[in-house]
């Protein structure tokens, strides 16, 4: 079995298994913990509305915080949106997803994907520089932050190298790209990348609790 077949075959299958089991285990480990009943008189019973409101509205910064968070927010928007465009807009990715799930949609022109990939890479580099130089981020950061950064950057970088046919045979470059995706999938449940799921649960939980009190969301 050659490298590409290993990447497409057992590596991808096992990383998907680790991803699925890990995500379910972590979510169950959190959500199955006890919940204390709240007997206080609610100001509002529309807690689901509060949950949805916070999930949506926390996507952008409040006006009062904009001047202090604009740079970090901009970097965050660029690489999150960029990743989404590259993952879900690139035709080969869509074909791959279709082969797994049967779901498909029209892709974006390759040129757009390449530019977006490069911008995403630049934003991720800026995020790393910021993490290394900002005193608050340096204090907070741990191995998870840097490793998660690495496994996020790797598929973007190897993908760009693969489509540019740089440095090796295309099959080898593609195999490396798929391995990097496997690493990302296998790591996701264990580190901060799990926020791709937890963001909805955390925002929703807080939104519901604050809505019950009529507090600011």
């Amino acid at each position, binding site marked *: 079995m050659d490298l590409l077949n290993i990447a497409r075959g057992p590596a991808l299958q096992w990383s998907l298994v680790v991803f699925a089991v890990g995500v379910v*285990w*972590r979510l*169950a*480990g*959190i*959500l*199955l*913990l*006890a*919940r*204390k*009943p*709240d*007997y*206080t*008189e609610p*100001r509002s019973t529309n807690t689901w509305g509060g949950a949805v409101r*916070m999930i949506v509205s*926390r*996507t952008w*910064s*409040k006006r*009062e*915080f904009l001047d*202090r*968070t604009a740079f*970090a927010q901009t970097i*965050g928007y660029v690489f999150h949106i960029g990743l989404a465009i590259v993952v879900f807009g690139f035709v080969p990715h869509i074909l791959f997803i279709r082969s797994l799930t049967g779901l498909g949609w029209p892709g974006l022109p390759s040129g757009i994907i390449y530019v977006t990939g490069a911008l995403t890479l630049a934003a991720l580099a800026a995020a790393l520089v910021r993490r290394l130089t*900002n*005193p*608050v*981020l*340096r*204090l*907070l*950061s*741990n191995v998870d*932050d840097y490793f998660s950064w690495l496994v996020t950057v790797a598929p973007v970088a190897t993908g760009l190298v693969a489509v540019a046919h740089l440095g090796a045979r295309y099959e080898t470059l593609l195999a490396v790209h798929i391995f990097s995706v496997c690493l990302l999938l296998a790591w996701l449940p*264990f580190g*901060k990348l*799990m*926020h791709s799921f*937890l*963001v909805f*649960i*955390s*925002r*929703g*939980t*807080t*939104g519901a*609790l*604050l809505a019950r*009190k*009529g*507090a*600011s969301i």
Partner: protein
Amino acid sequence: MSEAALPPLETTGPRFGIKKPEQRHDMQGDMSDNERIAIAMRHFVRDFGAVAATWMESCVHCGMCAEACHFYVQTGDPKYTPIWKIEPFKQAYKREISPFSFFIRALNLKPKVTADELEQWQELIYDSCTMCGRCTMICPMGIDIAALVGLARHGMNKAGLVPHELWAAAQRAEQEGSPLGATAKVFQERVEWMGDEAEVEMHMNLDEADVLVTMSSIEIQKYPQSIAAVAKVLNHLGMRWTFRSDGYEATNFGLLSGNADWQKDMSMKLIDAAIRCKAKLLLLPECGHAYSAMRWAGANAYGKPLPFKVRHISEFLGEHIADGSLRVKKGLDTTVTFHDPCQVARRGGVFDPPRVALEALGAEVREMKDNRGMSWCCGGGGGVISIHRADELRYKAFEIKMRQVDETRAEKLVVSCANCRLSFDDSQKHFHWDKTAQSLLELVADNLAD
């Protein structure tokens, strides 16, 4: 410090509270370091449910919470980053209860928290967090960091690692019924005094009443005119109300110090008194954390829904002015800015009623740049004002508030929290500032229509 000895009170200084200790005693009880750690971690982990675990798991270390915190913004010191304030507890959570705790323990990926770390974190958990919840408003993951600091205080309290003054005030409250010496006897004397002084009819210890009125010890001792003010308002409304010597103190230093057992004791005193006099409403004073403790935790201490309503005095005033039952004169013909107490507004949901009251009084309300849910804390909440060693930090935080008040160019500054008022008074003196915070309740009481 011995559990039996009550700490001395400072009654003559500019700030009313527990006397500043000559030497710091920031450990309570005789325990080894290992015992302290074990107790802190056990109690911290025991508090954990699905909600707190969700928040603990969700942090992406973006550091944005720092930008919402008055202590970080004013000092630029990264240690004041809100989520960093609970770092040892995050570590304990990951090691002890998180979904992958077995890996983390087996591979020692997160080391055990040390006694030194807990001692260092005392300043971060108590002195530099007012639990104002502004950081909750910026967190892109929606983590309620203020609530997590509250949980961390439980562990710190059990381990005897509470700042001296806060612990001492809580102990005094548990033993005497008030953190600041406002015992039942003192309270009754003050009620009588204020009744005579303001020529207002007082009701004390009625067997039955529709409204049980509570006060904060800061009001009783420092601003006793509030006692007369609330009596005037309730008499004006023609309500059947009472003070009770078995349930009058609404401040809850159990909550502030992190002693969950004492918090429950303090809440239950009020709840039992309200039930005894068959009250339909428990009226809370101008005190922010008293509102949090009773409105949003009282029923949970009781273990079932309360058989009466709980309202903050500012929402009570606003609602009764709005429905026309409380008639006031437009006696406040001036410009006013209103400070939203964090626990009542951002964390408690009371935004419009105080503004309704001020407008009914004829005031032109000029909002601060950051107001309502985004208001900056006065810096003295969460028990911080009682901690002497935190004074300089608190004054730094207060500078934001002072600046925003000045920018409004309003003639008057109004608050609806006695703790904020105390913080404003103390900072006013420190900065030789020309603004004196006034009580919303007292302004309403002074302007009742004939």
